[in-house]
């Protein structure tokens, strides 16, 4: 470990810079959320893929299957809920049947309730509350592989035209993606960890990489506060790039360990 650059009295040594970074996220986050001004946000290609997938299903008269993951309330699942909302709205408007498998973990009962609220809300907002059918959002048990088996059962029985699998799916994702390919559905997925991402990129028709999913979710939600989130994330990404570039340049030209000492502080 490099020598410390500074210490804050009372703060554990070696943890001050981390604390400053976290506080920075809090301050920037609250500032951008309060400001309420919509930042520019690039339209992620996934959004077009989703529209295409839903459109294709509508044309073929097949249902759309959209899932938001098996995990509890995390970064990926919250983003997936925005995407689910958008898909539900499109389905309601185009009279396409929407299937949403839920469950998969002990934390999924809480997410399930939110998902039901969202889908119901979108059908109501589109003026077709009677089209909402709770049987199309079955609870497939709180165990991961039973959920997977149920999910695959839905794929085989209902033969959806599109499968939009977003949010926090783990090892069952490959299982679902290959099966969905077998039944001829257009498959859109998102990877939540690196090896999963590489495998899903091969298995699915379209994949949202790294944090494209939260970006797409924020874009579709049009909620200024979610968009502000993306802004802060970008600022930190740029900050990390700057730290790397400056750190490497300074260290290798002058031998000064400044940035690493700052990071270790």
């Amino acid at each position: 470990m490099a020598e410390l650059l500074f210490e804050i009295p009372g703060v554990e040594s070696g943890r001050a810079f981390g604390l400053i970074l976290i506080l920075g996220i809090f301050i920037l986050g609250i500032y951008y959320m309060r400001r309420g001004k919509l930042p520019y946000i690039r339209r992620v290609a996934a959004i077009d893929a989703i529209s295409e997938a839903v459109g294709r299903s509508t044309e073929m008269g097949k249902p759309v299957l959209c899932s938001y993951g098996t995990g509890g309330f995390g970064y990926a699942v919250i983003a997936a809920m925005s995407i689910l909302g958008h898909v539900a709205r499109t389905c309601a408007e185009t009279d396409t049947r929407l299937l949403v498998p839920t469950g998969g973990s002990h934390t999924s009962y809480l997410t399930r309730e939110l998902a039901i609220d969202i889908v119901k809300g979108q059908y109501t907002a589109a003026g077709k509350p009677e089209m909402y059918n709770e049987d199309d959002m079955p609870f497939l048990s709180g165990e991961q592989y039973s959920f997977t088996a149920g999910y695959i059962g839905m794929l085989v029985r209902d033969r959806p035209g599109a499968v939009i699998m977003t949010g926090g799916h783990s090892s069952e994702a490959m299982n679902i993606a290959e099966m969905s390919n077998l039944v001829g559905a257009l498959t859109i997925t998102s990877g939540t960890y690196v090896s999963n991402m590489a495998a899903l990129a091969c298995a699915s028709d379209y994949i949202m990489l790294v944090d494209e999913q939260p970006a797409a979710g924020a874009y579709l939600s049009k909620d200024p506060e979610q968009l502000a989130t993306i802004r802060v994330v970008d600022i930190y990404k740029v900050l990390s790039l700057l730290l790397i570039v400056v750190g490497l340049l300074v260290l290798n030209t002058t031998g000064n360990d400044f940035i690493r000492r700052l990071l270790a502080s």
Partner: protein
Amino acid sequence: MGKEGVNLLKLMATYDKRWGYLLLFILVLLPMLQPIGMPISVSELTKDYLKQLETLEEGDIVLDSWSTEYSGYMELKPGMIATHKYFIKNGIKLFICLGHPEGLALVDALLNEEIKGYMEKYDYTYGEDYIILGFALPNQAATLAMATDFQGSVKVDWKGDSIKGTFLDRIETGADIDMIADFTTGAGNPGLINHIVLTFGTPMIQNQIGVSLPGSFMNLDAGLITGLLASTRGGSELELLIKEPGPGLIAMDAFTLGHYLLIILIVIGNIGFFGWTKKVSEKMESTTIR
């Protein structure tokens, strides 16, 4: 060539993938019926892992963390057996913490079956040389509690017997642990790195499944872990290095054939793609890779 040639190309591009499944099944089982004994090489990664093991001295205490379900054990088995044989042979003291409920089945499979004879040979006994603490590290909080006040947070072993009077009396905090050996199927228990490695500078070696290797390489490069044994392949290399042949080396024939089958199918797929898909149909196969 004529029509038949075209059909062969079409077959290469669009064959039913279940034939591939069947072939994989056969190619994995065959070499087990009739071992071929193909040679293997040892990677630098495994050599470094062994160097880490060699820093331990007799009587050192290792936190032996098994954060794997039973299925992951199938992949980690060669590495787990080889590493534990090294520990046993060199008189290292172990306290085993399970990070997953299915770990219970592992105790049976590993300690009571695979290396039972080996433990008897070196007179490696429960209580004196190793202790099983059971599902003691379910989360970060438990790990922190163990790292800051070991005696306060751990009182009994997995069967509810007191651990007083054993070698664990020597541990007050994480600083008294000489090494962490983590056998894991994922990030494992992040608490090990966060609360023991980062706080006390304890070296940590890891035996990781192939799926989660990218993350482990990253941690290895950042110095958060000091040794890495990669999947079954790493385990069999360690078997070779410590001269204790086991299941890993037997698995290597099937391993080689499985890999070659995929490579062959990739070649066939490409011939089919250029010979048929590209000419006949504009519709691409279902994949993001374009």
